[in-house]
């Protein structure tokens, strides 16, 4: 689209197949760092000098959600260089910053393109952007838009008014579950060595090292590890509001206990008390630790709170993990069938 400030790319408001496949891959954790949109100004529909200017991050998923939500509207979209990171996280890292807003406003010669002096910023960018600084730096006034892109149309229709519900973050089941694939793949990347190690350790027994032991004991202990991972990265996040207690480590431990007991119930006849106890301890500890790590993905845990929780939980988790491993070792030498 040709304007007084030169040509400006126009964007579609419908997503095509490539967009969808791309977003699926990102959700699964593949090349997350390369899913960027070029920063700069974009035209949505046929905007003119009166049209609103919406500012957003250059994370492709954010950009896609926004343009889809704005279908049928004429607006300017100012995309910042947030290094391909979403609004909130980029604001936390200060990449979605006052300086970046000012820079992009100037680069786009926005003051010549529009007659008004207002920028609509997503509310969640307020951790990185100071409205005062933006005003001083480029003369544009910041209007805090709603949190969800889907609310923008009603926000505009209401004359830049967002109700309390639009201003509060949510953390619904689907919002939690969409995070789990990345969580699992990241966890597996760092914990994959654990399973072969457990298999090897399981081989050690009264006859020093036996392949029969390795198999017989390796399978249940690996199962305990896998269940611990699933419990901490999927079950706990999914059931988050319904599991009692506030500390994530406790929630994770409870979920792990449930899963561990379930596994034991399943294999009641084939497993003795000592190894069973060891396996439950391992599942519970892993689940508790991973659930604690999930705090980083939630929009409501405060750093002071997480730090407090960690100071109490990490020593306990370490003790439980050591105890589990020791019991698992000892149980190999105890004369009961495993």
């Amino acid at each position, binding site marked *: 689209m040709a304007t007084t400030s030169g040509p400006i790319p126009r964007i579609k408001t419908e997503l095509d197949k490539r967009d969808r496949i791309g977003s699926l891959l990102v959700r699964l954790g593949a090349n*997350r*760092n390369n899913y960027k949109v070029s920063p700069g100004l974009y035209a949505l529909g046929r905007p003119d000098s009166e049209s609103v200017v919406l500012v957003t991050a250059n994370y492709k998923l954010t950009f896609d959600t926004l343009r889809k939500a704005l279908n049928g509207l004429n607006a300017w979209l100012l995309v910042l260089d947030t290094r391909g*990171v*979403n609004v*909130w*996280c980029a604001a*936390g*890292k*200060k990449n979605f910053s006052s300086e970046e807003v000012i820079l992009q406003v100037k680069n786009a010669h926005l003051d010549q393109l529009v007659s008004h002096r207002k920028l609509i910023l997503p*509310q*969640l960018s*307020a*951790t*990185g*952007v*100071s*409205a*005062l600084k933006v005003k001083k730096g480029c003369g544009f006034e910041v209007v*805090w838009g709603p*949190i969800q892109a889907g609310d923008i149309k009603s926000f505009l229709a209401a004359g830049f008014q*967002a109700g*309390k519900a639009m*201003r*509060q*973050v*949510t*953390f619904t089941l689907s919002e939690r579950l969409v995070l789990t694939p990345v969580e699992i793949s*990241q966890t597996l990347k760092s914990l994959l060595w654990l399973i072969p190690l457990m298999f090897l350790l399981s081989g050690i027994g009264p006859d020093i090292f036996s392949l029969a032991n390795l198999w017989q004991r390796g399978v249940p202990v690996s199962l305990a590890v896998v269940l611990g991972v699933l419990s901490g990265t999927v079950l706990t996040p999914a059931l*988050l*509001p319904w599991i009692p207690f*506030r*500390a994530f480590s406790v929630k994770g431990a409870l979920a792990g206990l449930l899963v561990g007991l379930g596994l034991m119930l399943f294999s009641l006849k084939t497993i003795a008390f000592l190894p069973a106890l060891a396996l439950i301890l391992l599942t519970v500890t892993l689940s508790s630790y991973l659930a*604690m*790590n999930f*705090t*980083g*993905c*939630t*929009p*409501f*845990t*405060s*750093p*002071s*709170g*997480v*730090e*407090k*929780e*960690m100071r109490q939980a990490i020593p306990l988790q370490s003790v439980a993990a050591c105890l589990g491993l020791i019991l698992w070792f000892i149980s190999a030498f105890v004369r009961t069938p495993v």
Partner: protein
Amino acid sequence: MEKFRYLPNVSTLKLDESLCIGCGSCTLVCPHSVFTMNEKKAHIADFDGCMECGACMNNCPVAAIDLRPGVGCAAAIIQSWFKGKVGVSCETETCC
């Protein structure tokens, strides 16, 4: 969001009501509706809802709000323990 509550009485959030000029910015930017406006002054209505994101402090024109902002992320906090940095944000790829 009332369904989700984290540990109580831990936030470093402080509001000096005597400095407040009643602009209302903090009520607009807070994602947990921690503040309410009452007779041209901001009040902390839901202290335990605060997640220490720092948006309010960042946008208060008279610096009436003070807190230690950061991300509530275990991985980031472990990092800060080792590197001794305060208020680190997630540099790891594990989170956002």
